[in-house]
């Protein structure tokens, strides 16, 4: 009874009361006036080739990362993205530079698909001052907030609520934007996944939850861990469409995200996309991959996302083998330059900066926190 009464009150707010609130709005561009503007639907041949090049860059970058790890030049943990390139590149090609992205512990591909600079990426992995996060984040914590990449996280499923909050901000600010939230099949068993999708489903938030189902959460197969066979099948209970796509086909991923983004921009709420894919390397460098067979690995190598797309483009006469080789040479040179920049030319951060940027306006000293600035 009380609830119904209160709801009636809300429907008819006391006259004049709302006028007391300042008319100032946070949104600079109210969405109502303008038709939503998404990424373009059809790609030219050149644009398709650009997608292929992006995938080649990611593969070459990750191969280099693996090599540097093996040679112990690169320290720490790196979870490489090789094999999954079509997901990041397809999805990121379907959004605009007004949209947000959250990433995962296997996130190099997401950054590069968004156009991150190879040199600064490699420098960050090497812990150098010239890296995207001044060497503080490393492989698992790369962000480029200026370009709306809200960052990677070392916690499986850790960014699902954050992406949901980004969607909430977009909605409250009336912006023509979406948030693209990458996560893995393992994360779909976390409470964060279920809490976030419920919240986004209820509030119709403009978030595209894109699950990269690479079959394994570290070593445990999805089928050994989950009560369902498909991640996408979890969508309907949260009042959103669930779409499973071939994650090795870059344009298939792209089309699914385009459709989801268009729906979100129209106020149609979130979508869960499951891209079925495979990581070529182990979970991390110490992983002997005893939990999967050589046959399975060979099967997926046959469905390599770069080879599939290259062959498509050659079939459509948009590319020749010779042109592909030239592109590969360009990519290889760029990766070599990134390695030189990161490994040889870039300095490590100054140890005196270790306590910088923990807080806004305060810094840790022997005696505790002291102000670094006086706020106006």
């Amino acid at each position, binding site marked *: 009874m*009380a609830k119904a009464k*209160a709801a009636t*009150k*809300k429907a008819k*707010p006391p006259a004049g*009361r*709302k006028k*007391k*609130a*300042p008319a*100032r*709005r*946070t949104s600079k561009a109210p969405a109502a006036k303008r038709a939503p503007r998404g990424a373009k639907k059809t790609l030219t041949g050149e644009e398709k080739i650009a997608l292929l090049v992006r995938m080649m860059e990611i593969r070459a970058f990750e191969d280099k990362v693996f090599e540097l790890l093996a040679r112990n030049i690169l320290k720490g943990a790196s979870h490489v993205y090789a094999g999954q390139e079509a997901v990041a590149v397809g999805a990121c090609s379907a959004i605009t530079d007004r949209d947000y992205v*959250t990433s995962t512990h296997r996130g190099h591909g997401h950054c590069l698909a968004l156009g991150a600079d190879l040199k600064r990426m490699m420098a960050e992995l090497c812990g150098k001052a010239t890296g*995207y*996060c*001044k060497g*503080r*984040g490393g492989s698992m*914590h790369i*962000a*480029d*907030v200026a370009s709306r990449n*809200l*960052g990677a*996280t*070392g*916690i499986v499923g*850790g*960014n*699902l*609520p*954050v992406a*949901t*909050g*980004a*969607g*909430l*901000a*977009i909605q*409250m*600010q009336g912006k023509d934007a979406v948030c693209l939230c990458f996560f893995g099949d393992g994360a779909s068993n976390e*409470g*964060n996944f279920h*809490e*976030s999708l*419920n*919240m986004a489903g*209820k509030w119709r938030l403009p978030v595209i939850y894109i699950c990269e189902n690479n079959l394994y959460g570290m070593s445990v197969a999805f089928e050994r861990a989950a009560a369902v066979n498909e991640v996408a099948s979890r969508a309907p209970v949260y009042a959103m469409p669930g779409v499973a796509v071939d994650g090795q086909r870059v344009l298939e991923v792209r089309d699914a995200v385009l459709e989801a983004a268009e729906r979100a921009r129209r106020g149609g709420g979130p979508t869960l996309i499951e891209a079925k894919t495979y990581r070529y390397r182990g979970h991390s460098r110490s992983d002997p991959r005893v939990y999967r067979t050589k046959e399975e690995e060979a099967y997926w190598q046959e469905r390599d996302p770069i080879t599939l797309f290259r062959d498509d483009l050659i079939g459509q006469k948009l590319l020749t083998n010779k042109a592909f080789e030239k592109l590969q040479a360009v990519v290889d040179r760029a990766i070599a330059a990134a390695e030189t920049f990161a490994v040889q030319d870039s300095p490590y951060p100054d140890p005196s900066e270790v306590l*910088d*940027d*923990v*807080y*806004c*306006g*305060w810094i840790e000293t022997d*005696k*505790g*926190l002291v*102000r670094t600035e006086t706020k106006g």
Partner: protein
Amino acid sequence: MPEIMYREAICDALAEEMRRDPRVFVMGEDVAIYGGAYSATKGLWEEFGDERVRDTAISEAAIAGAATGAAMCGMRPVAEIMYVDFMTLAMDQFVNQAGKNRYMFGGKTTVPMVIRTEGGAGRSIAAHHSQSLEAWFCHAPGVFVVMPSTPYDAKGLLKTSIRDDNPILFIEHKMLYGTKGEVPDKEYLIPLGEAAVRRPGDDVTIIGYSLMALRAVEAGDALAEEGIHAEVIDLRCLKPLDIDCILESVKKTGRLVLASEGYQEANFVCEIIAKVQQFAFDYLDAPIERVCAANCPLPMSPVLENEAVPTTEKVIAAAKRTLRRA
């Protein structure tokens, strides 16, 4: 000056900041129609509506994480977690994401968010609704911890916290919501990291915060009747900590008692004790005394609960021990 209740001071601070800044919004369990489990958001929903006063699902991780994401994208969320005990469910989002993002990402993001929660014993609601877990959050780099004891401080510090660019855990006390105190009509802010001297004295320093600041004042009053002049300090903020105020007092009195409702083991006051011995060792005339909660889950039975948490009598006794007058 008009007297208002602690819960009203919280509510007034929220309303004023929401009127002032359209980026500020409130979300949490039961905050809208119900007005908050302890009525600290009462009336906000009627004024600001569903959009800015959001009842959420019982999803603590999503509440804390959505606040983090919204803060990174230009909003200033004030999320409510009903009991600090429930912060266990939001821990990863607050500590690992909100608290660390700025540093991990090279200083290129800010996370201007407040989580309001409440803690403390006194209602016989046992081990999952009575804890004082502030030490956990003081241990986490990147987050602030604010714990006001009066309506005046609650309002001024909450307004400052909402305007601050750091993720802040604002811990209220369930036994303080109904307490009254003077709060001016005129707008005011209280800077973070400034303790308040509640009572001047030069025999012994007694430090408390939240409800224990009131117990410390009561102890100071009782000691005065016996001719012992205690200086009572209310920390107000645990992080940032006003260490200068503490050191100045200890250098004057040479004796220190700390009262906290947190478990004794690894209590936040241990950090204060470490700093005092580091920076004022030569001034100490007696071993430092701490009066904390017993190292057991908070029991339900009122008799046991009272035994487990610090009381005014325990604070008085500790002060006397430092003066060898027990």
